């Protein structure tokens, strides 16, 4: 691959994606029954009609849709995402502060579900058709069909309410000065949200790994390895894992979209002060600038997940990396 052209192409694709996402979300929000003015001043405002007219005029709310989009997009390009109504601060600041918290939550759940799901899938696939395998399959299908917030509530009511092992929400203990918060406090608060998001994400990767293992174990090169005297354990370590790991890693990176969606719901349940709960708050308050800002961040996050999946395939798979080769 001509690397420089490849990178240009990737950047172009990213810009196109962001453009499409921004247009779509802008149009959707414009068509939604949200009155930005009401959202800003509140439904029981005592503002006079003339004053309201002036604000509408000042904001350009009566301009045609394309003009409004261009004004907004132009500001975004200059780094101005507008002000959040909910938090009374610039959207860029809100996202910057919260993204790290969401990122920690997502990456922990992503890594855990990936590693656990991979090994669970292998353990289940090796015993294809057994009771254990069928139990794992049912378990994963149930998890995949269960909504994230419901699982979050179950986890919350069991571990936090019934057993009282973990706090019921937030990222740090309530009423504690920021300077006094310890790492242990942070970890203590992370456990349940991470657990929830891990459980929500584990079904997909487990089922995928299991399916891929069953497929691989039926292939000719496994048959040949057996005919050459390799034991089941050697076959799995030397051949099966090697052939499943790559597609599994790819699937895991490509699942950033589900991860982001699950994160939004889990954060809301646990009052985790990340991007997801901000997004929910923005949607409930008609906070258009924040909603649009988080939508763009979400799109960017998912895009990078898919990009990494593509790049990894090229780096790790010898058939792509050394394609053409000597033959």
């Amino acid at each position, binding site marked *: 691959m001509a690397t420089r052209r490849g990178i240009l192409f990737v950047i172009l694709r990213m810009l196109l994606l962001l453009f499409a996402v921004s247009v779509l979300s802008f149009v959707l929000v414009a068509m939604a029954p949200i009155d930005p003015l009401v959202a800003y001043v509140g439904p029981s405002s005592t503002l006079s009609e003339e004053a309201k007219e002036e604000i509408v005029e000042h904001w350009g709310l009566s301009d045609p849709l394309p003009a409004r989009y261009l004004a907004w997009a132009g500001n975004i390009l200059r780094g101005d995402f507008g002000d959040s109504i909910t938090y009374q601060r610039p959207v860029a600041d809100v996202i910057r502060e919260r993204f790290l918290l969401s990122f920690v939550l997502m990456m922990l759940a992503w890594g855990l579900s990936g590693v656990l799901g991979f090994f669970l899938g292998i353990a289940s696939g090796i015993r294809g058709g057994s009771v254990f395998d069928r139990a794992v399959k049912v378990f994963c299908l149930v998890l995949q069909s269960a909504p994230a917030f419901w699982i979050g509530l179950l986890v919350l009511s069991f571990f936090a309410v019934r057993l009282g092992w973990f706090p019921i929400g937030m990222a740090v203990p309530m009423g504690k000065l920021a300077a006094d918060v310890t790492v242990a406090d942070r970890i203590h608060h992370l456990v349940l949200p991470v657990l929830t998001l891990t459980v929500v994400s584990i079904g997909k990767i487990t089922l995928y790994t299991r399916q891929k293992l069953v497929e691989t174990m039926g292939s*000719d090169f496994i048959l040949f390895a057996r005919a050459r005297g390799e034991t089941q354990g050697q076959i799995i370590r030397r051949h099966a894992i090697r052939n499943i790991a790559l597609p599994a890693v790819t699937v895991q990176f490509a699942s950033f979209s589900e991860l982001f969606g699950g994160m939004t719901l889990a954060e809301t349940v646990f009052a985790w002060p990340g991007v997801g709960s901000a997004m929910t708050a923005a949607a409930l308050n008609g906070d258009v600038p924040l909603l649009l800002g988080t939508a763009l961040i979400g799109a960017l996050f998912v895009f990078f997940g898919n990009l990494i999946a593509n790049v990894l395939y090229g780096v790790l798979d*010898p058939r792509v990396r050394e394609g053409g080769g000597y*033959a």
Partner: protein
Amino acid sequence: MAPGMEPILSVEELAVSFSMYDRGLRKADLAVIRSLSLDVRPGEVLGVIGSSGSGKSLLAHAIMGILPPNATVRGEVLYRGEPLTEARLRGLRGREIAFIPQSVDYLDPLMRVGRQVVGTFGTRAAQEAIFERYRLGAGVARMYPFQLSGGMARRVLFATAAVGGDVKLVVADEPTPGLGPDLAAKMMKHFREFADAGAGVLLITHDVDLALGYADRIAVFYAGATVEIATAAEFAAGGAALRHPYSRAFSDALPQNRFLPIPGSQPYAGSLPEGCPFAARCPERTEACLAGDVPMRDLRGGKVRCVHAA
């Protein structure tokens, strides 16, 4: 081939059937191989020929113990005079008994060829020596299977058999399809090298010419049964030198002989008839042919499964 030498491998009335779901949940047994008998002696190449669906590949898989789990095997496989049990096979595969498969698909696509040839029993040094013997350049060990040319892939598969060091039996399943005549002949020379080193070679092939050119004896399969075992010279001569009507017809159908086809087709697995499987197409058929299973018997230094042969 010294007469009286104990065979390395002997297969006695081997039968393979698969249990399959027939209409809903009723299980049915599908008999694919009915009665295969042959023996391979040290230092010889035994060519196994027969049309597609006669059970050739399954024979190889049955010997190597790599049939799918729904297969049932009956009959006896003896290795150096003793039954080749599952446990015994586990210790012999990859060391004394080597399998050479059909295509590069039998190599792990993501493992470098050198490491793969070394496998679990070979050594790096042995692999390098064998690569040199097979004229595989130094770079080949670092290639992945998809980078190999057809001829290279074949030599790599041969190398997997030789790397164990102490090979006594080579089972090859269609090792030459898609190769030009020159390359195929080279591959056959490698089989001869195995045999000349004292190993027995079971060579399953579609290519009758190659089998005739390089094998010592030929086993002819028809519809899941061995019908005759003859020397390669007898098979090449054809006609009266052969013992079974099917092998005679097979030999007659070769282009260098009379190029004569015989009418009809081989019965399918699952609808194998009682008695001699070839009876429906045989010009010498009598009532006796359909009376029950025909045993394999010795005749004129070879073997035949026919009530009339003399």
